[in-house]
Each structure stands twice: as structure tokens, then as C-alpha cells.
């Protein structure tokens, strides 16, 4: 269950990382927001991916 949850969280974080610059390019976000969302997505990815790897190893 933890693996699925962290997997979804990691994928969602990655989507944010890609969505932010795309939204900036299309004019929906300004530069500061784009960079902020990218930073949030990146932090999410590292947390989720680390948890995912730990859960996999524990199993």
C-alpha cells in the first residue's frame, strides 16, 4: 500500500515539475510561480522516491 501511495505521489510530483514550465511557456504562470512550482514538485519527487525505494527494500 505504501509503495502504491508513494509511487502515485512521485508520479504526481513529476507531473508538477513538467507542468510548471509548460504553463509558463503557454503564459498561464509567471516566472516566479513556475520556479516555485518546479521546486515544490522536485521536493515532492525526492521525498516520494526515497520513501518508495525504502518501502521496496523493506519488502
Amino acid at each position, binding site marked *: 500500500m505504501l509503495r502504491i501511495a508513494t509511487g502515485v505521489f512521485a508520479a504526481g510530483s513529476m507531473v508538477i*515539475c513538467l507542468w510548471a514550465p509548460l504553463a509558463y511557456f503557454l503564459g498561464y504562470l509567471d516566472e516566479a510561480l513556475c520556479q516555485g512550482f518546479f521546486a515544490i514538485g522536485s521536493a515532492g519527487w525526492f521525498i516520494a522516491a526515497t520513501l518508495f525505494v525504502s518501502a521496496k527494500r523493506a519488502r
Partner: protein
Amino acid sequence: MSGLAARTDKLYEFDREPVSPDKLQSGSRFAGLFAGEHVAGTEFVIGAFFVLHGITATDLIFGLLIGNLLAVLSWALLCAPIAVDTRLTLYWYLRKIAGPGLTLIYNVANAFLYCILAGAMMSVAATAVGLGFGMDTPQLTDVYPNSVGWVVTTFSIGIVFTILAILGFEKLAKFASVCAPWIFVVFIAGAIATLPDLGVKPDLSNFWEIARTKIWTGVPSPGQEQYGIGHIIFFAWFVNLGMHVGLSDMALFRYAKSWKYGFYSAFGMYPGHMLAWLCSGIMVAGVSREMNPGLMAYNAIGIAGVFGVLVAGWTTANPTLYRVGLAIQTITPNWPRWKITLAAGLVTSVLACFPIFFMKLLEYVAYYGLVLMPIGAIVFTEHWIFPKLGIPRYRAERLGQTLNLSALVVWVGTLVVCYFLPIHLFYKWLPGWFVASISYTILQKATAKEVEHA
């Protein structure tokens, strides 16, 4: 020499036996491995340098398509078939052919080359950290450090990377594998976020025009050599020459179920190299062609981008430091691992302070492949050509030689011939490969009776 060689053998003892059928890996594993391994800190520099060398957009795209295809074919048709046939690493196969003495020399040469690569990655990471201190990044033509700030930052990063490698390589390698997909996203996101600064419209209607006039303009930066499609084809082909034509990826493909798994290298070449190089080219155009990976990423996606450059530099330098340590272990008996890694890290950190290794990365990569290429040619010839010509194989093993002198002569001789070839550095390795293969065949044929009588 034989004492040193025995220690080297002991070090690689764990993979002495051919891989057993139950250890073979699935194709998706190879796809993942290649996709992760070929998006690294070097990519920030390589794609940017293509822009600085004045390549045109069309030449770059076609050059990368062709060059990466040639690289994939080299993995699939040269490296993977020998690996699947023998199920051995290059180390153990070369030992049968050329003797433990030559494998030792090969290892030490490889370690030295790895040191420079790790040093260049420390320099890349320094550009990211230096942003926070307003540090002056070296100029494109700089050979020596240009400021105390650069030396202090680069050396400090080198020491931090070294300490991290000492603290635990394996755990860090696992963390690095987590970073790989994110680093790939840093490249994509960085390029997308740079496009509006370059004037690309949201409907992409003027993308090609901007690409031709503001990114890959065909005009080199001052002091940089003009590159054409040939340079790009050959660069994309030889950037991993030591791995495919040089056969060091036998270590990987010995776990493949079929030689066709060599084609999985396309996952590293196209979404990896090709896309990452295009993205870093866009990013460097966004900072007026300033060769500063930290600034490129910061300008595109802010502080997370800076972190991306730092992590990319570190994830490339970390396994490289480990490999250097492994190779040096053979000539430093009874040294604990931490001491070896510390020594390798210190040497690498000093090298990192010299910007020439980072600013001449493309040329360095060419030399790296060139130096290791003759060994690949020797092994290829021995594996495929000798049985067809009736030349006895595995001379060193059969004669109990520490060093197959003709292999050493061919290796050194090929490099000398390549040095004098009146062609561009990027093209030298290809005729060199034929020189090595033909001269090794002639030498071994001439002395075949010695082996037959043994």
C-alpha cells in the same frame, strides 16, 4: 608486475565466472539502466558546446540522429554479441587474450581518465554553487584557475564529494538512481522555460525560426572551432566509445538474454543524449552563450535548477570516484577503501580546479575513447576474426604470459599512428580501429606457431 596483477585479479574475483542462466536480466532492466545512465552532468556541457561551436539546427538534428544510431548499432553489433557469447566482463576476457599485466595497465589508464572526468563534473557542480557567491566562472579559453574563489569552491566541492563517497558508496548510488529521472526532467523543464525568453510563441509557430536564428545559428562563439554535421555524427558515436567499441559494457551485456538487447541502448541515446543535448543547447542560448551550467539552469527554472546541476555533477562524479578507487586498489596494497577513495578524491579535486578539463570536455571525451579503443579492436579481432583465419586464440592464457607483448605494441602503436593522422581529432578513432585490428591480426598470425606448439 605479476604480483600487482594477482592483486587485481583478487579484486575482480567476484565476477570471474561466466554469468549463469538464472542471473540473466529482462530487457526492461536494460532500457531503464541506459535511460538513467546517459543523462548526466556532462550533458549540460556537451549540448551547450554544440551551440558555441556554431552548429546549425539542421546539422545538429540529423547529426544526432545518425550518430546516436551508429552508437546503438555499435552496442548491438559489437559489444553485446561478444558479451552474450562469453558471459564475461572485459577484464576477464582481456586477461585470457592479453594477460593480467595488460589488464592492469588498462585499469590504471582507465582510472586516470576517470579522474579527469570526475574532475570536470566537480567543475560543473562548482558553477552551480558559485552562483550563490557571485563567483567568476572561468572563460572558454582558460587553462588555469581564474580566481581564488573558483579554486576554493571547486576544491571544497571535490572534498565534499569525496567525503560522501567515503561515507558509503552503495547507499549513495541508490540515492543517485532516484535522482536520474528527475535530472532528465530538469533538462526538459529547463528548455521549455527558456523558450519564452528566446521569443518562441506559445503556438510554436516561430520555433524553427528562433532555433535557426537564436540557438543553433551556425556562427561559432569567438575562439571556438566551427563544427559541421560530421563532427556531430562522430561525437554522438564516440562519446561512449570505451563502452561500446571499447567493449567495457560487456560487464552489463553479459547479463543479457540475447545480443539483441544491445538495441536497448537506444533508450540512453535518444531520450537521453539527444534530447538532453538539445535542451542544454536551448538553455545556453538563454544566457547569451555563457558556458556556465549553474547559470543556465538557474535562469531557466530557478534554485531547483541549480540543485539539479549540483546533483547531476555529483551523481556522475560519485561512481567515477568509486571506479578510480577500485583501479587504484591494485597498486596500493593493504590500503583501506577510505584511504584509496580519499587519495583519488584529492587528486581529482586538484584537477577540477583547472578549467581546461571542463572547457575542453568534448576534446577530452574524444581522447578518452581513442585511448581505450585499441583494446576493443584487439578483443573483437580475437573473438571473431581469429577463428575464421585459423589463428589460435587466448595466447596469454595458453602460454601463461603475464603480458601479451604484441597486444601492448598494437595498443601503443595505434595511438601513435592516430596521433599523426592528418584528420580532425573526432575522426581519428575510426581508421585507428582498423589499424589496431589489422596489425594485431598480422602480428598474431606471424607468431601463431608459438601458440600451436605450446
